[in-house]
């Protein structure tokens, strides 16, 4: 039985009971409990099933390194999987459920895998599920998907009701970890006047020190921690944050920290989590160390725990892991656990120490004095029990296992394989490690720290995170942080003499395969000693390869518990030294952080700003069906009541062709290019000649990148000798402006040209259709006759009293005027056009009608006919490419052999024989297969619509030798890949080939 002790527990408040449920069962704990301590106090030793073999698993640790006790917390919209019970503070009403079992935690079908475990070695999935190929999709993948993964994903319809926020902090020193080392470091940094931020992942200060005991300057460690904290709290330049975990260290002193504000008090107001985005001059990692498990047979049985965790549960939460606990160790520190248990009145039948020491160390002598039996040179042969520990069979550590000397009944095993500094944050941004043979650990290499923007060391590790093991070492280490004549001497700790640790990577040291197959290295990913050895035998000698083959140290473990034992096993199997094998890469976050914290306030409307034109409000109120175009919203169509989308689009096209259409073209990019060299500059940017354009005239232009590919198109209007207004596509405005600036600033910086993106400064309305001139004449104020304002001309004036610039350009093939006004006038002009236009049957139209109108005319659309691999010559746009210019961006590239290949796919029109609409993007197939076994193709559809004007499907496409094959019928594959549609290659201009309609 694990149970609550009658007295003690420094973190719990026995006067406050809190009730919670675990798998629906009602349990109680105390304020100050973690979910883990409360479960143990209720004898809930079994907390989950393992990932691969579904073995019963119990709580191993007391902190962030816990591999097994991952829970689904909360209900409904607040459900969250994979939360560690050890870092979840208990609150009244908490609901938790265990994971990875079916039908229940106690009876789990998947545990059959355990019986078959000898058939499921490392790399099993890779080896087994390769053949036959068809099985993968229909048999293996569904099965693996069902059995893979630990927690359950939240319901797809769930919406997190909590709020999250980001904090930006700029500090001189960020100290990570609120143990003795971190508090000392923060105090010393604070005394220099520096701005200091100290973060601690738990709710408590002092780290392990209050549990582990000892004295500093004559005070207990607990009292000393309180004194340090009091000193820090009065320093105005020091900020303290508990429940705040430093998740990652990045370039140039950037760090992320994850503060859990209300996880422990879910009814409190305010954001739930806060992501700290910190820029620190220097980062001090006082992140402590994590105890290593010992690999012995059955070390994953519920009841086998880290010795330090057993100590924590007894001292912090007054939880007994069992009446009888056997301690097994290779070092002195675990003796503290034995002493704590005895002081709490619990039995320690034996301490099994793998070492044989010439004389007792002080801790050993103390244990002996309390009457604890110490068996040196002994090991656990195997743990007895099926669902929880019943006892241990012991043997000589020097042996091969199987020769059981004695069986000891017990309910818990406290194991200690030594300590590994938490080097994650040190390593995230390039800090290197050194193997310390004496201390048997990787610790930060002071000669190879992560470096900052000036090449200076950016991270400093102190205390146990730096390999310091005793209080005095920790205090001395912190004192070295702020060197100088005024530095306070390190405080003095009481004596702490310990005998050296002896490395133990398998227990007993010569264990047989039968034992090694039951000795777990990584609980979370179900990796055993035998798996790592198998990986080495199969040639996965690099530690990074072995990790991926076995999954050692993956997922949330990130090397916390498994790393050193795993790579020591690998180095043993390879006959190499541990430092030669090296470690895998430590990656952020140190422990998982919530997606909510990452998103912060960026959700729903604040996820991305939406750009709205001056006419947005009218469109929204009158049935616009919105579609995103970049950050803009544009109306796909403007629906009338009772109309389908298709019906609305057809109506808009027909009315524009027959009467009068209005388009909100305000989103079109508008860039002013001005200066004595503006014409010369535009000659380089556009494929055609712009410098010869006369003021008052417009010209359609194509823009390519240096690779020769078409990137944008639009109409350029020459305003005066030195000023051009370049229209770009809606999505292209920012990118094209940046493209212009790049060439101006970095290549032709001596040219006298300015550019300005004035897209939002103007509203623009296209007035389109046979009655376009009539409506403008009815409004009055400007001469818009063909004589005064011919096609491709522009003029300025006042329309109905509104100052406008009028461009006679057409993207529909109809008589068309685009009217630009200062943005503030756009809505007024729109309303005026609607009112006066009523007598001419005016209707606004959306982007789909715009597309159909342009496709009927064979006008290309950037992003439909182009995809970043298409040059203007492919689109039959040779007429817009200057032959006279010596150079323009893309010219040289368009001379490359692949660009002048005679069989490039070229633009044609396509008409289905049955009048249907071709699927957008469909490929034109031809006989045979290519080298990859794929069907040969000879072209594809780039745009396809139903044309109400022609009463049939029309399409544009790129086809090999297309323009030479007019009249030929080719076949396009439907999306099912087998049935075909026949289409005839035709001229891409379907409507009004001679342009009579626009030129009136």
């Amino acid at each position: 039985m694990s149970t609550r002790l009658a007295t003690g527990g420094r973190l719990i408040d026995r006067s406050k009971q809190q009730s919670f449920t675990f798998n629906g069962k009602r349990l109680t704990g105390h304020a100050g409990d973690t979910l883990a301590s409360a479960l143990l106090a209720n004898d809930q030793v079994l907390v989950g099933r393992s990932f691969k073999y579904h073995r019963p698993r119990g709580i191993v640790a007391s902190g962030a390194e816990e591999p097994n006790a991952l829970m689904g917390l909360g209900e409904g919209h607040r459900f969250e999987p994979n939360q560690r019970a050890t870092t979840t503070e208990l609150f009244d009403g908490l609901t938790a459920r265990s994971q990875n079992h079916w039908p229940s935690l106690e009876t789990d079908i998947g545990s059959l895998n355990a019986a078959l475990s000898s058939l499921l070695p490392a790399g099993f999935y890779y080896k087994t599920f390769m053949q036959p190929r068809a099985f993968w999709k229909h048999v293996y993948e569904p099965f693996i998907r069902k059995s893979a993964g630990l927690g359950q994903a939240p319901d797809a319809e769930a919406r997190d009701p909590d709020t999250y926020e980001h904090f930006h902090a700029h500090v001189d020193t960020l100290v990570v970890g609120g143990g003795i080392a971190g508090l000392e470091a923060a105090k010393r940094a604070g005394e220099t006047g520096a701005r200091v931020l100290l973060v601690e992942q738990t709710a408590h200060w002092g780290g392990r020190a209050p549990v582990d005991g000892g004295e500093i300057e004559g005070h207990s460690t607990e009292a000393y921690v309180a004194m340090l904290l009091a000193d820090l709290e009065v320093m105005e330049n020091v900020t303290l944050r508990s429940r705040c975990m430093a998740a990652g260290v990045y370039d140039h002193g950037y760090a992320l920290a994850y503060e859990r504000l209300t996880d422990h008090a879910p009814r409190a107001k305010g954001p739930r989590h806060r992501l700290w985005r910190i820029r620190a001059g220097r980062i001090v990692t006082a992140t402590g160390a994590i105890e290593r498990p010992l690999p012995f047979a059955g070390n994953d049985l519920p009841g086998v725990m880290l010795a330090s965790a057993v100590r924590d549960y007894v001292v912090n939460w007054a939880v007994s892991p069992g009446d009888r606990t056997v301690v097994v160790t290779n070092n002195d520190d675990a003796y503290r656990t034995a002493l704590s248990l005895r002081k709490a009145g619990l039995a320690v039948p034996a301490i099994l120490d793998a070492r044989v020491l010439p004389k007792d160390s002080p801790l050993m002598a103390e244990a002996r004095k309390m009457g604890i039996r110490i068996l040196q040179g002994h090991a656990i042969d195997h743990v007895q029990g099926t669902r929880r520990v019943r006892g241990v069979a012991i043997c000589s550590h020097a042996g091969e296992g199987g020769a059981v000397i004695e069986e000891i009944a017990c309910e818990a095993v406290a194991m200690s394989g030594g300590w590994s500094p938490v080097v994650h944050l040190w390593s995230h941004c390039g800090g290197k490690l050194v193997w310390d043979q004496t201390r048997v650990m990787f610790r930060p290499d002071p000669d190879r720290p992560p470096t900052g923007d000036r090449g200076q060391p950016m991270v400093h590790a102190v205390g146990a995170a730096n390999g310091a093991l005793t209080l005095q070492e920790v205090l001395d280490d912190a004192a070295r942080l702020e060197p100088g004549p005024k530095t306070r001497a390190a405080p003095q700790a009481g004596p702490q003499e310990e005998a050296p640790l002896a490395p133990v990577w398998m227990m007993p040291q010569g264990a047989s395969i039968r034992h090694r197959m039951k000795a777990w290295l990584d609980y979370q990913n179900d990796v055993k000693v035998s798996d790592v050895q198998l990986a080495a035998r199969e040639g996965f000698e690099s530690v990074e390869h072995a990790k991926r083959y076995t999954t050692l140290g993956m997922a949330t473990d990130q090397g916390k518990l498994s790393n050193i034992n795993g790579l020591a096993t690998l180095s043993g199997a390879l006959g190499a030294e541990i430092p030669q094998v090296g470690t895998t890469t430590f990656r952020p976050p140190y422990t998982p952080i919530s997606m909510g914290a990452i998103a912060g306030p960026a959700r729903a409307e604040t996820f991305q700003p939406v750009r709205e034109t001056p006419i947005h409000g009218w469109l929204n109120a009158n049935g616009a069906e919105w579609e995103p175009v970049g950050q803009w919203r544009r109306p796909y169509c403007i629906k009338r009541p009772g109309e389908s989308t298709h019906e609305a689009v057809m109506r808009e096209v027909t009315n524009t062709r027959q009467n009068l259409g209005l388009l909100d073209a305000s989103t079109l990019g508008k860039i002013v290019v001005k200066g004595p060299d503006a014409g010369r500059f535009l000659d380089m940017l556009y494929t055609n000649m712009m410098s010869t354009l006369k003021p008052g005239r417009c010209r359609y232009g194509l823009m390519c990148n240096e690779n020769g590919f078409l990137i944008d198109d639009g109409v350029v209007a020459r305003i005066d000798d030195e000023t051009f207004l370049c229209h770009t596509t809606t999505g292209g405005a920012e990118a094209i402006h940046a493209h212009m600036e790049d060439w101006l600033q970095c290549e032709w910086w001596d040219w006298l040209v300015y550019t300005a993106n004035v897209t939002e400064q103007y509203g623009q309305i296209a007035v389109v259709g046979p009655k376009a001139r009539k409506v403008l004449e009815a409004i009055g104020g400007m001469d818009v006759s063909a004589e005064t304002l011919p096609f491709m001309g522009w003029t300025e004036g006042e329309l109905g009293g509104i100052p406008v610039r009028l461009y006679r350009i057409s993207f529909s093939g109809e008589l068309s005027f685009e009217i630009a006004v200062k943005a503030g006038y756009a809505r007024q002009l729109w309303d005026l056009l609607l009112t006066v236009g009523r007598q001419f049957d005016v209707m606004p139209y959306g982007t789909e009608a715009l597309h159909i109108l342009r496709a009927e005319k064979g006008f290309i659309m950037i992003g439909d006919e182009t995809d970043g691999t298409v040059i203007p010559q492919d689109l039959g746009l040779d007429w817009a490419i200057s032959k006279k210019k010596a150079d323009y961006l893309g010219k040289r590239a368009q001379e490359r052999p692949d660009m002048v290949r005679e069989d490039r796919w070229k633009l044609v029109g396509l008409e289905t024989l049955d009048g249907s609409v071709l699927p957008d993007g469909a490929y034109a197939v031809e006989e045979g297969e290519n080298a990859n076994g794929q069907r040969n193709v000879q072209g594809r559809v780039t745009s396809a619509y139903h044309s109400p004007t022609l009463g049939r499907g029309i399409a544009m496409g790129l086809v090999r030798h297309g323009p030479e094959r007019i009249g030929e019928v080719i076949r396009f594959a439907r999306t099912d890949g087998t049935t075909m549609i026949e289409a005839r290659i035709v001229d891409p201009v379907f409507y009004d080939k001679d342009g009579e309609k626009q030129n009136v």
Partner: protein
Amino acid sequence: MLTLHCPYCDVQTDETELTPGGEAHLTRHGPGSEDDAFHDYLFSRANPRGLHFERWRHTYGCGKWFLAARDTATLEVFGTYKAQTTEPPQHIRDAIRDRQTGRAARTAS
């Protein structure tokens, strides 16, 4: 996430304010250039472990392009300078030399 000094704004900028632009000091090849030379200009980029000259634009600031001399392995920034130059200016070259000599001296001692 890097910080780089914008030589126009004279402020230390955060990487989120910047747009990277790849290798600096390329020579543009246009019509008349050989196929191989033009191919290299379009596609061949240095990707060194160590000193690298890079283009950056202060997109969410002044909008200006500037250049940075940076060590891609240690993340040390030797200096940033305005883009209107075909080669690193003398003070940047001096800074690189000084830092690298300093490092060599530290390693030797």
